[in-house]
């Protein structure tokens, strides 16, 4: 029993001990088995790189059979869905700014008449290009949609020779990011991702560290109230988050030349609310997790959908409705709309109040849960 035999036996001893310990730690075990399946199903179905049925606002000043034919061709392409009817061109642009629609199609007066006179009338599409990937496929198809629709409409005396140029002048305005620069979209998004990652992780350790190091007993034996503990634990990390924000914003400006159209004060208030939301969530995790290891696992369990379902990596509107609803629950989803809206679109509070509201509701719900979950005793 010397040499290899004894060594194998020792390996076996360690292996058995590991297996027993793995089985004891239910949470890790469940995470290892269930998580990949959940993620596979969730993300496998949710993520779609070719978003369709994008909400589109329509404003038609010239309601004719041809226009109706082209509009319905847009709808039938599967990329555009006319969810809003604009009252004016300004209203259409506003819907786009608010992020309610991804496109605004404007058909100016006299379109049909000009078409008949072969004067190349304009067909205008305003696209929200903050996320270049989300809009590009739909934009690329616009010309094809129009020309194939016209081919069936322009018959007899109206027919044009095949070689001639397109009878309609398609004007596509890629708003907010005309050159389709990915960094413009990703860098502000990264601000949200980095804040989510660090804030949730740091605070999720807050209470578990106390209990793991044996300090909790002492802390509970002294007169502290749950909200005092929570506020005291969270506040230092607000400062950390603000420092991170400053670094990222400077990098966005000087390294990546990301434009900044909106108000810095508004952005900073969004950042504050977002940091607090994440810290509250982290604190809640720390009241649930039994160890720092579990707190870490919970953070990752939360982090992955935050990246994948929030619209950071993949177009939000490309996901099926259920996944979008899930995404609405994540603070990062709302923060991305805030940060992209403020930086790239120059949105004001009136455009974004609903996103602020969502974050505040998240803070209240999660903060309440944390205080309820907070252990006042060692039971």
């Amino acid at each position, binding site marked *: 029993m010397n040499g290899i035999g004894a060594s194998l036996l020792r390996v076996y001893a360690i292996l058995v001990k590991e297996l027993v310990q793995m089985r004891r730690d239910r949470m890790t075990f469940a995470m290892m088995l269930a998580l990949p399946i959940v993620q596979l199903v969730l993300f496998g179905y949710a993520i779609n790189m070719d978003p369709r049925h994008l909400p589109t606002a329509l404003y038609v000043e010239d309601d004719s059979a041809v226009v109706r034919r082209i509009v319905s061709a847009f709808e039938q392409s599967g990329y555009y869905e006319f969810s809003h009817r604009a009252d004016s061109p300004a209203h259409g642009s506003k819907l786009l700014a608010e992020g309610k629609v991804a496109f605004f199609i404007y058909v100016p007066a006299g379109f049909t008449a000009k078409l008949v006179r072969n004067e190349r009338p304009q067909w205008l599409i305003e696209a929200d290009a903050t996320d270049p990937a989300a809009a590009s496929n739909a934009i690329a198809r616009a010309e094809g949609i129009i020309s194939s629709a016209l081919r069936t409409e322009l018959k007899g005396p109206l027919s044009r020779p095949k070689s001639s140029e397109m009878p309609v002048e398609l004007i596509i305005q890629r708003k907010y990011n005309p050159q389709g620069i990915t960094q413009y979209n990703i860098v502000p998004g990264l601000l949200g991702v980095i804040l989510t990652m660090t804030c949730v992780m740091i605070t999720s350790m807050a209470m578990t560290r106390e209990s793991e190091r044996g300090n909790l007993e002492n802390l*509970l*034996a002294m*007169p502290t*109230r749950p909200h005092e503990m929570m506020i005291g634990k969270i506040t230092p990390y607000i400062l950390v988050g603000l420092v991170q924000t400053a670094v990222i914003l400077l990098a966005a400006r000087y390294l990546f030349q990301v434009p900044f159209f909106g108000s810095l004060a508004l952005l900073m208030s969004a950042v504050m609310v977002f940091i607090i939301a994440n810290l509250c969530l982290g604190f809640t995790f720390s009241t649930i997790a039994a160890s720092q290891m579990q707190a870490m696992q919970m953070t990752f369990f939360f982090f992955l959908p935050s990246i994948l379902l929030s619209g950071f990596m993949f177009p939000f509107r490309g996901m099926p409705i259920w996944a979008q609803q899930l995404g609405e629950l994540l603070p990062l989803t709302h923060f991305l709309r805030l940060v992209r809206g403020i930086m790239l679109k120059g949105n004001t509070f009136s455009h974004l109040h609903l996103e602020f509201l969502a974050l505040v509701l998240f803070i209240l719900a999660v903060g309440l849960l944390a205080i309820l979950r907070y252990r006042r005793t060692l039971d």
Partner: protein
Amino acid sequence: MTECAIDVKGLCKSFSGRQVVSNVDISMPKGEVWGFLGPNGSGKTTTIRMICGLLEASAGEGTCLGYDIRKEARKIKELSGYMTQHFSFWQDLSVRENLQFVARLYNLSARQKVVQKTLDELGLGDRQDQLCGKLSGGWKQRLALAAVTMHKPQLLLLDEPTAGVDPQARRDFWDEIHRLTNEGVTVLVSTHYMDEAERCDQIVYLAHGKVLARGTVDDVIAQCGLITFQGKGENVRRLADALKGRDGIEHVAYFGTALHVSGRDRDKLKCQLGPFMDEADWQEIAPSLEDTFIDLMKQAGVDKREHG
């Protein structure tokens, strides 16, 4: 009737169906030092935690310093000091930072002064910036006591404060406890050391979550009604196995090089010792507290101790 610092009745605690403490009554007058004794896992820590509001009692009621242990835990925490069994101050904070933290939590006025005074009294003035994790066991224990007494509590709950501390440090610690009781502080201290138990005004002996004996040390020894013979000599080691389990002999235990044989019936005991009279030098002695505890534990039944 003197005012009670702790007055609890019928305290019970079970963890997931397992009864850890059952029906513990304690009425402890103010200004005394009581010892809490019993084997590991007998429910001492759990009882102390229920008294200071760290655990919620499954059943039973009572007051601590006049406040309801169920409803007014916060008040109790403000007026009492609880020293945990394992050092529970922050190892990555310095001595001074730990004391400052505690002083702030209790909202002490003249905080800097109090902290400085505590440091000086502790004799840690020159090591105040050392991290607590680097302190030796004895210093940690002294620091913990200083920290839990900084806010001048009326009641001190000390959970095995002297475990793993050298004899001199233990003596100093107890001198400090007596100094505090002279100032009117009430102290409930759990311990495994007989010499410490003997320094208490009264002791409460707990086994399997039940109070088995209580009273002054002499009372507890007398209640037990043991008769003990001490055997000395070169051969006593071989005698122990021969004597164990014989009718009339409750237990046989070594005390240093001597053997203590205890029972309840003097005649039976003498009769059993008869054959061994020549092998050692036998003498009837007053049973010690430890003899009594060995007996109490035996009476409580099989050893169901849980270590940890």
